[in-house]
């Protein structure tokens, strides 16, 4: 069985979008819970979960 | 015409009484200061009137409404530390506030624009509130409180967190607003109360210990007196002063004799005449007036 990459591509595209939106928001945000740079690491290095954690807990309301 | 009357209002938190059966009322188009030291219960009173707290007992009656009816459409309220939706612009927040008070979007927009100008933050109306300074937030807070033209405006410590310039501006604004609506504001600074208010409610430990028109209170607490200084024989002069018909009392305080009189003018004349006639070795003669401040300090310290 061969892997059909066209089939899997959307998975990576969506993960990429999530990452990009998180980074855009991170760059614009002013108040962070905890350190700004810690959140950058979380967003980039914890795939999928990182951006979600950032959106949920990273910003002050 | 009485606008609001409060009867036996009590508020308890976990068996601790923050407000103890207070009663007061005030008329339309007055400016009333709720004066008291920190922890006197000022904020609790304002929050209860605003409907944010429920009274443990007692009634709040607004002109033309049943006791304890929902009067939120008639009041504007600014908490001591207003918090906004930081992601909205100042203009958006005002329009939102206006619409919540059942104005149409168009009405709210027009009024918001006018108020932003009036409180002096028109330049920042398109800026997110998150970027506002403390003073700008205070102005926005006043604007949101009056957007729906309330009959009663309640401000909790409106000037205490501001710098002298900001304080002056807000007091001037209150002076103007007095013409349009009744204002009830809390403060722990007598000077602020004296500056803009017509009436005073003095609160301590959840009780109203003094209230009335500013002018009446000033008169009531004004104890006029004359201070005379001599080098020696104070007892002797004190007796002579006592004998004068216009002198109510005289007592010695270190080098001085302090005289109090009901009619200051008459007392001054009599004392000076006697001093000349008897060749008193006076070293100083002074007229002094005690102020509301002394009364406030005395009352608060008790």
């Amino acid at each position, binding site marked *: 069985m061969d892997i059909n990459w066209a089939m899997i591509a959307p998975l990576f595209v*969506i993960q990429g979008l999530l990452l990009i939106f998180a980074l855009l*928001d991170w760059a614009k945000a002013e108040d962070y819970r905890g350190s700004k740079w810690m959140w950058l690491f979380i967003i980039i290095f914890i795939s999928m979960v990182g951006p979600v954690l950032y959106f949920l807990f990273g910003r002050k309301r | 015409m009485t606008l609001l009357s409060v009867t036996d209002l009590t508020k308890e938190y976990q068996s601790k009484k923050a407000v103890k059966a207070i009663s007061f009322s005030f008329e339309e188009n007055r400016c009333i200061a709720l004066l008291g030291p920190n922890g006197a219960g000022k904020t609790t009173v304002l929050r209860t009137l605003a409907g*944010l707290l429920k009274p443990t007992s007692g009634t709040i009656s607004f002109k033309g409404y049943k006791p304890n009816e929902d009067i*939120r459409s008639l009041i504007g309220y600014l908490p001591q*530390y207003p918090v*906004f939706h930081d992601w909205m612009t100042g203009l958006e927040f005002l329009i939102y*506030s206006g619409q*919540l008070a059942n104005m149409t979007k168009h009405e709210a927009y027009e009024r918001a624009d006018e108020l932003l100008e009036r409180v002096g933050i028109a330049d920042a109306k398109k800026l997110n509130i998150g970027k506002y300074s403390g003073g700008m937030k205070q102005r926005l*807070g006043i604007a949101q409180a009056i957007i729906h033209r309330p009959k009663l405006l309640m401000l909790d410590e409106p000037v205490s967190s501001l710098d002298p310039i900001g304080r002056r501006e807000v007091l001037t604004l209150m002076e103007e607003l007095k013409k349009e609506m009744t204002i009830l504001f809390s403060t722990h600074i007598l000077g602020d109360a004296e500056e803009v208010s017509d009436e005073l409610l003095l609160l301590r430990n959840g009780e109203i210990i003094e209230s009335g028109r500013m002018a009446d209170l000033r008169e009531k607490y004004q104890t006029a007196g004359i201070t005379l200084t001599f080098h020696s024989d104070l007892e002797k002069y004190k007796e002579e002063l006592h004998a004068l018909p216009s002198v109510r009392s005289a007592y010695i305080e270190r080098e001085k004799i302090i005289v109090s009189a009901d009619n200051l003018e008459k007392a001054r004349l009599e004392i000076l005449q006697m001093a000349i006639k008897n060749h008193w070795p006076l070293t100083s003669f002074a007229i002094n007036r005690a102020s509301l401040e002394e009364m406030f300090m005395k009352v608060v310290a008790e």
Partner: protein
Amino acid sequence: MQWMTLLKKELIENWRNRKFIWVPLVFILLAIMEPLSTYYMPEILDAVGGLPEGTVLDMPELPPGDVLMLSLAQFSSLGVLLIVLLSMGTIAGERKSGVAELILVKPVSYTNYITAKWLALFILVFIAFLLGLAGGFYYTTILFGELPMSAFFYTLLFYSLWLAFVVTISIFYNTIFNSPGLVAFASIATIILMSVITQVFGHVLDWSPNQISAYLSQMMVEETVSKDLIATGLTTAGMTIILLVLSVIMFKRKELAN
């Protein structure tokens, strides 16, 4: 009118803080990962290289209905967790920060306030679920075989009722507690407790909201909507309405300033 103002504010807020973007993306990811990882499991195991020489992998061929249920299972666990975390501060947070003091001193009807919050949250959750389910459905059909479109619509309809119920649980605790953390904890605890009770007393609690997934799974096999599914759906809707009314009552009774 006032209700629309409140609803619009919530929708704009969810747009500006990007919830309308990232929540659907996460739901799509949750849903499409299941059919993909199930389909490519042999390759994944191979790539990891953990298999000793000569191991024969006998992967059973799953029917498409079961695969779609795997996606749904993701929504039931991670999806529900996400919804609770998203909504834990919708009222409690406003009260904690003090914004509520400015809003509720305006003549705002408490019923409007609560129901607008509820609907805004449900709209967000529904859009995320709709897109996620569509993604999962699409991958399932092309990798594992055709499913009738009715399976999609019934799943959308009945599972949305369950999600609406989850939203309502969170709103309910939002009216009770001032701390978002406490709201999340109580909501999760309630959902877990309900699921345990449903498992233990399953024979008497035929129509417990927690049964919706089980009946949907049954629907995939039998290709008909059972009476039990409809009854469970109605029970869930009924409980949602009751809980929403209770939320309004609790909110009215609670003092708004702390």
